[in-house]
Structures are given as C-alpha cells and as structure tokens.
C-alpha cells in the first residue's frame, strides 16, 4: 500500500489561551468538513504541569496510525516555554507562528519560516484577550490555505464556540488572517 503524507500541527502555550480549543476546531474542520483524516490529542499528565499546554493535530488523506506528532510541519508558540520546549521538533522548512510579545528569544534564523503575529494585541482589538487563540487560527489559515477551506474552518468554529460569540470569533479569525496576508504574503 502507498503510505500517505502526514501534515502535523502543534499548538502550545499556557492553559487558558485556548490551545486545546483551536486544536479541536482544526481537527473538526479537517475531518468533518474537509474530508480528511485527523487525530487530535492534547497535553496530559506530566506535560501539563506548570501551566504548560499543548494540542496536536495530525492530518492525512490516508490512515493515521501513530497518533502523535513525529516531525511537526507547524508550530504555533504562544509562550516562550512553548517555543523552547517544541522548537526542536519542528521540521526544517516548517512554519513557526509566534507572538513576539510573548516569545522574545528565538533560535537562529534560517531553518524555519517565521511569522511573528501579535496575537494578544490583535485579540485586544476585538475587545477581549480570550480571542487570542482564534487570531492565531486565522493566521495559520492564511499560511495553509492550500490544505483547508475557510468554509470548513468556519463551520467547525461555529460548532465549537458559544453562539453569541460567533461574530467576534469570526472577526478575530479575520484579524489574524489579514495580519499575515498584509505583513508576510503581500496580499490583502
């Protein structure tokens, strides 16, 4: 049989930043609305000590056997600890999205594609820090648009958040997406 390519996303930060929620949204978007297989896991036990939090989504057109990240294609780091812990498992040429207000010490450039996205500042623009995760999700979408439809993410988002927050969540998503497009992709 032909073994299918895996696409591996890791999101890490502190508990309360919504890391687990956007992992679940991504998994739902890929598998329920995007027609692909995915496995979503989250930090647990010894890993979650000290407030650290991690969520993973492994995506493939084929079977996903080993359920955890082996060699991440994407790392979203919302804290310095998250970056320090997981940067070693980001593959060469992988995508690194980080918040420059939280992550100030970066490894030498060259190995990854780096995207500094001020998720906290952009979330504050929507009126509430709690939308930081969805800002990051929008930023990620702008970078992996060849892999997932926006409509799939929107459907998954709607299923996963309280109904009265859907509009603000969508606004936060667009802020993250537009920031990446205007700062890194020269699009609007």
């Amino acid at each position, binding site marked *: *049989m032909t073994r299918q390519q895996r696409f591996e996303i890791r999101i890490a930060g502190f508990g309360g930043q919504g890391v687990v929620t956007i992992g679940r949204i991504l998994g739902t978007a890929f598998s*329920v609305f995007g027609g692909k297989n*995915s496995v*979503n896991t989250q930090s*647990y036990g010894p890993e979650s000590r000290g407030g650290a939090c991690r969520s993973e989504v492994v995506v493939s057109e084929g079977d*996903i*056997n080993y359920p955890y990240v*082996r060699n991440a294609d994407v790392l979203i780091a919302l804290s310095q600890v998250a970056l320090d812990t997981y940067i070693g498992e980001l593959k060469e040429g992988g995508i690194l999205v980080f918040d420059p207000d939280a992550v100030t010490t970066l490894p030498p450039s060259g190995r990854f594609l780096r995207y500094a996205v001020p998720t906290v500042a952009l979330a504050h623009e929507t009126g509430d820090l709690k939308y930081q995760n969805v800002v990051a999700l929008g930023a990620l979408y702008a970078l992996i648009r060849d892999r997932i439809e926006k409509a799939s993410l929107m459907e998954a988002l709607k299923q996963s958040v309280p109904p009265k927050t859907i509009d603000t969540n969508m606004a936060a998503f667009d802020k993250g997406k537009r920031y990446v497009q205007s700062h890194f992709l020269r699009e609007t």
Partner: protein
Amino acid sequence: MSNNEILKPGVYYLQGAQACLEGAITAGCRVYAGYPITPATEIMEHAAHRLPRLGGRFIQMEDEISSASVLLGASWAGAKAMTATSSPGFSLMQEVISFAIMTETPLVIVDVQRPGPGQGYITTGQEDVMQARWGHHGEGSIIALSPASVQDMFEFTIEAFNLAERWRTPVLVMAEETVAHMRERLIVPAPGTIPIVNRTKPQDMGIAPEHYLPYGHAQVPPMATWGEGYNINHVSLVHHEDGNVTRYNPKVHFENVARIHRKIEDNVDTIARLETRELEGCRHVLICYGSVSRTGIEAVLEARAERGIPIGFIRLHTLWPFPERQLRDLLPDVGVVFVPEMNLGMMAHPIMEALRDRCRRVVSIPSLGSLHSPEMILARIYEELQ
C-alpha cells in the same frame, strides 16, 4: 449532537470516551453507575449528561465495588448496564466480575487502563490485560476486547453489549488513556445496519414459568427478567440448574462451573476476532493490540518499505478468550514474533504458548506509561534481524 436521542447517522469528531458511551447508548444501555477516576472520568461525565435525558439512570456510587454491583441488579431487572473505571478501580471490581460470571449476568465494564502497580501514574498502559482474565477468583472464562481508535470505542462497546447478552456474561472493554482521550472522526452508520443483540428470555423459547430452570435448558441458559412471572434465584454459590444450593455434590459442581467456562471457550472462533495485514509471504510477524497496534502497523510498513524486511502484522481485537487456534492457523511457520505492549510482556506469554512449535522466538518490546514510538519498535526489529 442532540441531547435527548440516540446519536444519528453522520460524521462526528469525538473523544474516544464519548464515542464509547455513545456506543453503549446505541447498544441499548440505559443504566450507568460509576465512581470517577482519571483517565476514565470523561466516560462518566458524558453518561451523566446523556443518560437522564434518554430516560435512563445515572448513579454516582461511593466506590467501584458498589458501582459494579449496581450493574448486577440493573441487569437482573432487564436493563443493559455499564460502568467505566481505570486500573486501581478495576482491581476493586474483580469481586463483582467473579459474582457476575457465576450468576451469568450480562454487563459491561470499561477499563481505561493507566499504569500501575498501586496508584502508578495517570498516563497510558496495558498492564491490566492479565488481570482481565485472571483477576477474579475462581474458574470461568471472560470476554475482553481491545479498541484502538475512536471508531473502535464506539463499535467495540456495542459489540461488548452484544456479546454480554449473547453469552450471558460480563464483558470487558480494555481501553487505554491513549484511545479514550484522543479525538478522531466517528462515522455512525444508518439505523438497522448496526446489529443489536438482546438476551434470550425463557418466553422466547416457549418455556412456561413452572418449567423454567434459571441455569438450565441450554449451554447459555435463557435469562428471565424480574417481575415477569418466573422464579429466579441469582446465586453465586455452586448451584443446580434450578438454582438450588442445598444438595451439594462434586458432579453438580463440575457441571455447573465447567459449563460456565466452556460456553466461552467452546466458542472462541465465534467470539474472538483478529486483524491481519501484510501477512502474505511474511517471514516474521508483529503481534499487538489496542493503541500499540497503531504504532505497530506504522513500524511494520516502515520496516518493509525501508529495508525490505518480510514482516507481517496481526492485531488482536479480542484478548480473551485468546484466539490460539486462529493464530496457529495463520502462522504455520514463522521466524521472529515481535510483541510490543505497554507492559513488561504480558500477552507475549499466551502468544508464546500458542506458537511454541511454530516460531523461532518471541521478542517482547515493553514500554511503561507511554505509547511506543515507531522508531522504538523499528530499532528492536532491526537489532534482532540484522
């Protein structure tokens, strides 16, 4: 997901724990009694949320012994009932498992395994697979299933209820933290395509109340429900077919207990299932179960692709009764048998016994508290074969 109906056909993205409880509901389970413990608590939380809205009963008990005991009474009253726990709680439930075997009571216990001994740790493990078979006191075989995905958590739980009802026996779902906590796509098929088995009652066999023997009539006796006019003696003492315990004799003892044991062991080929891949022309084989089979197949495919090693793959869906004859038929002559497990080598023993004259050697690949990485299994395969 609507709260007050059975999960509709469709595509869902659920945790294994949720899929397990949804499978139970689909199978007809309407009673859940439990005591919370990491990493099984999500099943209980979901039961507390779902069952009362379906007209079922959810009861939090004071401990695991009483939780499992609730299932006895519920089952005798005609309900399908389950509990879920994790390894330390599973130890406490052994007394009730023994009682349920002897009284031939259908019920389902899910063990979301964590490592031991003692409190051990809260991560993942497969250290209760021998306890599943041998933890209860006394004779009597048991049925134990080993799910490896969210889809399995749904389907194997349905299967567990069907087997419990069909064979009038407790059935164990030996899950692990890995599979209970992960989220994956769950596809729920159309109604009517999922077979649901209900216990045979004496009414179904045309047996009148005055002629009913609660432990007679067949190798799997028909089971009467309380309140339907049949006299029932639920006894865990050695008993006659009519439930009488006063006239002890060794012959009755043997017939009573051997029948309970044999109703499972005589039907291994009907009950036990396994899955094979890449077995054609293989020289070596990797045998595993549960979430380790996800790493196992990954390692087998890599060993074949990268180094051309002729290694096949067998996954045990059923741990007990152990499918010895099926394994022997599949592997008439094999080189090295690799057995990765999240314990120090437990199922490696019945595998070794089954293949004692069929293989060169059995190599256990142990891991404690975490799922093997494919690299870990590959390293052992390469070390052994090159």
